[in-house]
């Protein structure tokens, strides 16, 4: 490992083999955290670049949660940077509001009421995307990235109990929002 170009090359190859199979997971989480494709792609690339840099300190066994933790930190750093260094645009204001507002707000007036039944998957995607950050993150890590509670806790840097209550809350919110979108009474 000491300065051999060959070893370096070998290391990068091992990293690619281990990490690239999770690109869809990384990209999906990035989409839900960054909320637009261009930012998600930048975040995913930065995630892989950083992960390779830290590959030596990677101690398995689970590559996926490790990558997702790095991705989450990349996204957080980006939000922090925007908040500090830029005058808030509409988008970042929206982000800030969503993140600093952890308390559940009932999204009763969903604009897509009419198209729900035709495009249920689309609706659910929107409902998930509309969740406040900690809940959105928890549900995406669970349902899309298929992580265990302990892995989610590791990625989000919170106790498992917090993960449990966030997931329960997230599903309650989705249920309420879904009912609202369907115009059905619970």
């Amino acid at each position, binding site marked *: 490992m000491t300065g051999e170009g060959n070893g370096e090359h070998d290391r990068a190859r091992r990293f690619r083999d281990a990490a690239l199979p999770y*690109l869809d997971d990384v990209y*999906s989480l990035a989409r839900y955290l960054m909320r637009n494709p261009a930012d998600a792609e930048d975040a995913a*690339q930065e995630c892989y*670049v950083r992960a390779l840099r*830290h590959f030596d300190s990677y101690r398995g066994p689970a590559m996926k949660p490790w990558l997702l933790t790095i991705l989450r930190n990349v996204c957080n750093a980006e939000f922090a940077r925007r908040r500090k260094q830029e005058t808030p645009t509409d988008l970042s204001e929206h982000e800030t509001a969503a993140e600093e507002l*952890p*308390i559940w707000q009932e999204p009763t007036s969903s604009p897509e009421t009419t198209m729900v039944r035709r495009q249920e*998957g689309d609706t659910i995607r929107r409902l998930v995307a509309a969740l406040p950050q900690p809940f959105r993150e928890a549900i995406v890590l669970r349902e899309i990235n298929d992580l265990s509670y302990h892995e989610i806790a590791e990625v989000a840097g919170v106790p498992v109990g*917090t993960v*449990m209550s966030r997931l329960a809350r997230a599903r309650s919110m989705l249920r309420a929002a879904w009912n609202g979108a369907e115009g059905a009474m619970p």
Partner: protein
Amino acid sequence: MNCEDSEILLNALIDGELDAGHARDVEEHVTACSACAKKLTEFREVHDAVSAAGLKMAAPAHLRSRIEKALPLASAGVIAPRKFFQPSRRTFFGGFAVGTALSAALAASLVLTVVRTDQEQTIANEVVSAHIRSLQAGHLMDVETSDQHTVKPWFNGRVDVSPPVIDLTAQGFRLLGGRLDYIDGEPVASVVYQRRKHIINLFVAQRLGASHASTRIEAIQGYNVRHWSEVGLDFWAVSDVAPDELDEFDRKIAAALRPAGSS
């Protein structure tokens, strides 16, 4: 289980995160409680709908090639400080604040008893490794005696607990002696028993992993492991005896620990 903590438990059930005993408790509760049964159905519908919605996105091909191009450059770069992967960044979103602080506190306490922890799994594996090590010639005992009054004082100053040493010879578990062992980097007491030709290691520590109100038996590498908590101590019994015999052992130890007359 009561209805107040059910939302978290119902979700953990749906996610397959409850251990077998608690999953059964929750399922039993649901058969008797229509309110929770309704909640379970609703949570399950949400879970199913989200799974069925196919929310996972395929990374675009150009992103993949972009990353593949970027990687060798990153690889050639300087080595960054190794402080990056630190899971606790909980302050970023203003700390943990959900609408119901109560349910959060509840969940935090629940998780100690309900969800098996990775740490616990690690410790269970270490306990089994320590047991296997102890079976190698000359490793079983540091103090060899069937006299409990010799074994117990031997641990003084060697571990930070005074492990109960109970002579169960009359009940089929012969006390062989004691040993100092290391689990998870901490010195722990091991009290060694014998059942016919089988060795039982009883590891005793102040706290190995999360504390457990209930007992559970599991098989690791062919050994049966039983973990329980009593009188403020953590107990791990490891042996190749049959599970029901390990149960019996555990009951006898537990019974001897309880003061006479109390239930």
